[in-house]
């Protein structure tokens, strides 16, 4: 009971922040930052499930984001699909690919898994960059308008483009967070966390380790894919960078900075790493040094990540 109430509290706080924050927004730019945080937060929530719960590291999840993004770019053009359907198609495709490659890849452990997923991510971004006639190559590809905003307008809900995306991605993040929180304290979530600590013990109590790992992998791929699709639709333009190695690393960094096993940590990590570069622009040339420094400091003083370390601190006080 105690756990489930803390689950609702997390959701409530998150929803409140999403709802209240706009009152302090001086311009559309802040809505954009907000939606970027939500989009990243969604992908990171998926990684919390994979890395934080199941303990399986992936350095290639941007690959799934790329698949989701390019589905929204290409499916409307080549298959005439509505962007929303393209998003679903991308999700299904990511899930299918994750399921296919997950079987062999997840037999690997630790860094070996990391390098295998890294290879996958690089393959995806390479295909996207090199198959220029189809994907537009490194220069990127246009993405059609989702059209939902227009639809909302007709029913009298008039939002600016930035506001719409803020709300839309915010809803996705809330849903993603809700699911992840549910999972954490469910039988499946326990099985995942158990196999993280000891695969052999998890097996002996009857956990089908292979299947659960695969489920977590597919689930996190779905999160990443949705996040990629949302980004593409929001930007109406996408380049292979979305699938790139650096983006994968960025996602993992967000996951760990926020607190690998913590669902609210995902949002915190995404927020930190999305906002920092914006804040640090005032430092001009020192921007990168300070960014690196902050990452190191967070890990030194909050080794288990922002949210777990801070909440431990708060609990210590009371």
């Amino acid at each position, binding site marked *: 009971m105690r756990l489930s109430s803390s689950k609702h509290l997390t959701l409530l706080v998150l929803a409140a922040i999403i709802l209240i924050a706009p009152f302090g927004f001086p311009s559309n730019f802040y809505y954009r930052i907000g939606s970027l945080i939500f989009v990243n937060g969604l992908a990171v929530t998926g990684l919390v499930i994979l890395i934080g719960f199941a303990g399986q590291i992936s350095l290639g999840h941007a690959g799934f984001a790329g698949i989701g993004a390019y589905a929204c770019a290409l499916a409307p053009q080549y298959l005439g699909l509505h962007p929303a359907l393209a998003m679903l198609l991308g999700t299904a495709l990511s899930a299918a690919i994750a399921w296919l490659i997950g079987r062999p890849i997840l037999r690997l452990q630790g860094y070996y898994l990391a390098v295998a997923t890294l290879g996958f991510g690089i393959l995806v971004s390479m295909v996207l960059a090199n198959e220029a006639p189809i994907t537009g190559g490194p220069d990127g590809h246009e993405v059609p308008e989702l059209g939902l905003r227009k639809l909302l307008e007709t029913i009298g809900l008039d939002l600016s483009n930035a506001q719409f995306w803020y709300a839309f991605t915010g809803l996705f993040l809330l849903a993603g967070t809700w699911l992840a929180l549910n999972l954490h304290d469910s039988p499946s979530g326990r*099985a995942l966390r158990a196999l993280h600590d000891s695969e052999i*013990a998890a097996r*002996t109590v*009857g956990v089908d380790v292979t299947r659960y790992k695969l489920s977590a992998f597919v689930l996190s791929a779905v999160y990443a894919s949705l996040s990629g699709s949302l980004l593409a639709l929001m930007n109406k333009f996408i380049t292979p960078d979305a699938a790139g190695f650096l983006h994968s690393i960025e996602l993992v960094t967000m996951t760990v900075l926020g607190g690998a096993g913590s669902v609210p940590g995902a949002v915190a990590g995404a927020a930190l790493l999305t906002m920092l570069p914006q804040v640090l622009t005032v430092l001009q040339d020192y921007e990168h040094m300070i960014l690196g420094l902050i990452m190191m400091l967070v890990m030194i003083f909050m080794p288990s990540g922002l949210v777990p370390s801070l909440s431990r601190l708060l609990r210590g006080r009371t």
Partner: protein
Amino acid sequence: MPLLRVEGLGIDFGGLRAVDNVGFQVEPGEIVSVIGPNGAGKTTLFNMISGAYQPARGAVSLDGEIVTGMVPHLLARRGLSRTFQNLQIFQKMTVLENVMVGCHLQERASLLADLFSTPASRKRSAETRAAALKLLERVGLDCAADKEASSLSYGALKRLEIARALALEPRILLLDEPAAGCNAVETEEIDHLVADVAKSGVAILLVEHDMKLVMRISNHIVVLDRGEKIAEGRPGEVSRDPKVIEAYLGVQPKEAGGHALG
């Protein structure tokens, strides 16, 4: 029909015959102990029976079904459960959650149901929580339920493993040195616990160096030395067997101290 039957089981590591041609059987409700000097192959035998190692030779059958080298989670579904000599605790989970994972087979449901936290999934979680709490009480860890497992002392962790293994509601339970790290009084508690479990019809296979415990509760003892079975029988017979005394108990078991005198 015996619940567990082991025949001609063997495995090698490099050039070493860690276990060779070992066979015995366990009936429901029976406590069979496997004893033998360090490195005799007891843990390895457990690892083969429970699917952690693939045996090179021989067969294991559970309730008549051949389960040789079957993956552990399928064995778990058939009612086989174990503890580990080298503790395998879910360190980052709470003590209670550790035991709840032990209930995995009863509580598992589709991933989707869990993601959406369906009422059925929540209900199952609540049930396992209650069951797990009861088990913790049984091993005396109920007061530590919400602690992180990594914060328990060694002896407490041993008991936590037993609770987790019991959570599976096994038909056969493999215990690898459950009393190691427990003092005489605590050992006696484990003794009662094991006897209790056996009484409810669960077959128990026990590895233990505490001879007092072994002699007291075993129905049957298998003695291994250098991977081979050197003796088998009732506690009384085995403890008088000169081969066993020489290889394992020491010339004058009564004076040897050790757990025997606890």
